């Protein structure tokens, strides 16, 4: 059995407010083994996007990122691991739910 040499390609959903950085693409893709790597890979393709997501190497307060619908802040944040087939969604923080 061969060891994979490259990281899995991860699909990333981009919110409207960040699409100016992705040439208006709603869904982009990058290869990464964890969220930190993913953001770095995205930033090399879409310059400036990383800065909108991170501040002092932590997620910005009003940015939420989900791996398969689960909030990464409860999965190790930037260290959260990614595997083939995972889907990542980036959303600005909004108030919601039952109120």
């Amino acid at each position, binding site marked *: 059995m061969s060891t994979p040499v490259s990281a899995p390609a991860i699909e990333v959903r981009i*919110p*409207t*407010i960040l699409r100016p950085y992705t040439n208006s693409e709603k869904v982009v893709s990058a290869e990464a083994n964890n969220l930190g790597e993913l953001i770095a890979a995205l930033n090399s393709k879409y310059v400036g996007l990383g800065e*909108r997501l991170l501040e002092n190497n932590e997620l*910005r*307060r*009003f*940015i*939420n990122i*989900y791996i398969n*619908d*689960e*909030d990464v*802040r*409860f999965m190790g944040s930037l260290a959260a691991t990614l595997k083939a087939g995972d889907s990542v*969604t980036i*959303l*600005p*923080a*909004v*108030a*919601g*739910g*039952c*109120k």
Partner: protein
Amino acid sequence: MTRYESLEASLGHTPLIGLPKLSPKSQPGKPAVRLWAKMEDRNPTGSIKDRTAMAMIDDAEKTGRLKPGATILEPTSGNTGISLAMVAKVRGYNLICVMPENTSIERTQILEMWGAKIIYSPAAGGSNEAVRVAKEISEQNPEWVFLYQYGNPANTLAHYNTTGPEVFEDLPTVTHFVAGLGTTGTLMGAGKFLREKNPNIAIIAAEPRYGEVVYGLRNLDAGFVPELYDASIITRRFSVGAEDSVRRVRELLEVEGIFAGISTGAILHAALGIAKECVDAGVGADIAFIVCDAGWKYLSTGIYGKDSDSEVLDGQLWA
């Protein structure tokens, strides 16, 4: 005791109902994984927000902020407004709600029925906009009492003092508590109480994921995290879209006969995901989740129909 001196006095002590059919089957020889629904629609105006509204008004009266004949101002997507409107009517206050324009027609009808005035905020930005507009109006009208459910500790305290203890009393073996994330009051208050009783309990947040319009903020700094939110209370947090929420709310109706509002579908979706993980791991679990309200206020969306499509909720604040 089911006799009460008044409608207000009947707040809380809602039933915790088992879901024998919807709870997943455990592997042979492994302990049971059970789902329990906390029926918050059985509150005086039909939602969990009666707890928040009454606690905030009681607190404001006690501290002297709220005097007879005063006007209350509140940003709400509906349920808190409805709860406040009832209490305001009974106790003689005026109520002005700031509500996003993209909410169901029933909410407006019910608010007006209890005499509340409504100021609509733009659809884009959803509740964030309602909060921003309400804060602006509050600054311009300092004589109005701004209870502000997103930052009022009485909201969290209501759930610490009532929702949490009720769940624990009815289900001392509770392993997971699942609720919606809006003001965050339910999870912060009940979560803190339950964690104190059992440090190993999992507090699970289900956050509604809306259509794009709601995330159409003017800039990222217009994002919003409620002042009450304390991430250390939460174990895991899930984002649930309209499609999964509608599918689950219909499943709850079909399989267990429970007619719940749409946000409950999001909560149930997270609860069922956790239940499946427990079954796969071969561990037992008692998973309590919140039924925020019943489905009456959402009939006009058509989502309970057999051929309904969750796309009708696109652009609406359905939770």
